């Protein structure tokens, strides 16, 4: 190989390996690349793979280190603080949907009372910017939502009333646990502020309670308790044959257990709200990194139920194997990567602004 050819090969490989360096460290990348080129020129072409690999590894290490530093210094507290009201509002909406669909089942179990009460306290706390109130309400909700999974009977609360409901195949109880923990953190991150005008607090309270109220109006009256349909067959014998005539139909009393329908409207509302929030947060990440970070946190916290709901949605054609065994868990990597990307991007903008 000619000297020119070797030089070209050297430049190509080391140049490609330098791509792994982040843009912010471009100058460093050129220094390391030129050092590698010098080493290859001074020794032999056998050094080229080693130097190129070393460059690529150094670039990846720099990229990861830079990302970790930026994420570490990102405005997490602000991000959690902005989450308080939207997340509390969403949780109240979620539990309102769950409660309304079985409102005819009285007395209301303490599990449901605590879920609704805790969510309401969290919304009021977020509206008034009282962090401890938010954290306390969210902790109550978390404890009650987690209780069936800690041996208090799956799917039932302390009094035997079904606690949770399914939204399109997603167990809302489990799906709510991580976002509820986020709400606890959001409450603890709320800074004490000078008292705002009453009008602002009222507006925040209205914004927090509004969706749940609209849901209540939309859902009431809930699904009517349908009577049990009983079909009686009276066989008659004709020689050796048994004949069955048309059945007689009787309507029995309503089914004694409450009807637990799948809450598709809720999943649609949550899905659309999340998609809009992710899109807007992405667009405004430069000016509002805290919002983008917050959005990334929420997306990461619901990655698994989101995948579970999506693959069971008719418009998303999914092969049978995808929602059996552990595949949904693997597919959850996609929203997780999107969430990480969103947070990394916001952290970068935040670092640039500092």
């Amino acid at each position: 190989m000619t000297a020119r050819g070797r030089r070209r090969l050297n430049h190509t490989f080391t140049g490609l390996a330098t791509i792994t360096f982040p843009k912010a460290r471009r100058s460093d990348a050129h220094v390391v690349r030129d050092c590698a080129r010098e080493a290859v020129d001074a020794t032999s072409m056998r050094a080229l793979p080693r130097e190129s690999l070393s460059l690529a590894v150094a670039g990846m290490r720099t990229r990861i280190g830079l990302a970790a530093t930026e994420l570490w210094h990102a405005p997490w507290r602000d991000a959690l603080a902005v989450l308080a009201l939207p997340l509390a509002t969403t949780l109240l909406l979620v539990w309102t949907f769950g409660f309304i669909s079985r409102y005819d089942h009285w007395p209301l179990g303490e599990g449901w009372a605590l879920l609704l009460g805790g969510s309401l306290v969290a919304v009021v706390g977020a509206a008034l910017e009282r962090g401890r109130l938010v954290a306390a309400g969210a902790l109550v909700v978390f404890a009650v939502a987690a209780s069936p999974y800690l041996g208090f009977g799956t799917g039932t609360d302390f009094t035997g009333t079904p606690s949770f409901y399914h939204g399109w195949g997603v167990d809302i109880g489990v799906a709510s646990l991580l976002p509820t923990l986020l709400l606890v953190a959001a409450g603890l991150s709320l800074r004490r502020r000078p008292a705002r005008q009453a009008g602002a607090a009222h507006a925040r309270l209205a914004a927090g309670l509004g969706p749940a109220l609209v849901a209540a109006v939309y859902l009431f009256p809930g699904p009517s308790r349908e009577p049990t349909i009983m079909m009686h067959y009276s066989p008659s014998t004709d020689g050796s044959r048994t004949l069955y005539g048309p059945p007689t139909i009787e309507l029995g009393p309503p089914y004694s257990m409450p009807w637990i329908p799948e809450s598709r409207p809720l999943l649609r509302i949550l899905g659309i709200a999340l998609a809009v929030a992710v899109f807007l947060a992405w667009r405004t990440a430069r000016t509002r990194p805290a919002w983008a970070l917050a959005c990334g946190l929420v997306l990461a916290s619901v990655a698994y139920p989101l995948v579970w709901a999506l693959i069971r949605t008719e418009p998303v054609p999914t092969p049978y194997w995808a929602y059996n065994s552990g595949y949904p868990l693997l597919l959850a990597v996609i929203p997780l990567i999107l969430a990480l990307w969103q947070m990394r991007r916001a952290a970068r903008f935040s670092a640039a602004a500092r």
Partner: protein
Amino acid sequence: MELRPASYFVLAALLDGPLHGYAISSRASELSDGDVHLTAGTLYGALDRMAARGLVEIDGEETVDGRLRRYYRLTDSGRDAVLQEADRLAAAARVVQARRTGPRQAKGLA
């Protein structure tokens, strides 16, 4: 502060004055009789860490034949660190040397 062999020889290479990346790598290899061989990526990773610890600092940059070179120099604490490490290694070597020469001398006397 104990230094890894690669860091020790990088700092030792800088004792004579500021050097650029490839020169540091060559000098470190030479000083260690070829035991320490640093690729560009490894070398700059080590220099970054040492700069963060305040052992070295950037002296300047220049472009030679279209290639960017960054020069590094030792800081006072870098100089102290490499000298202390040399003393520590020398002391550790003396312990073994004393025992190696002892029996030989004894054997010679017998």
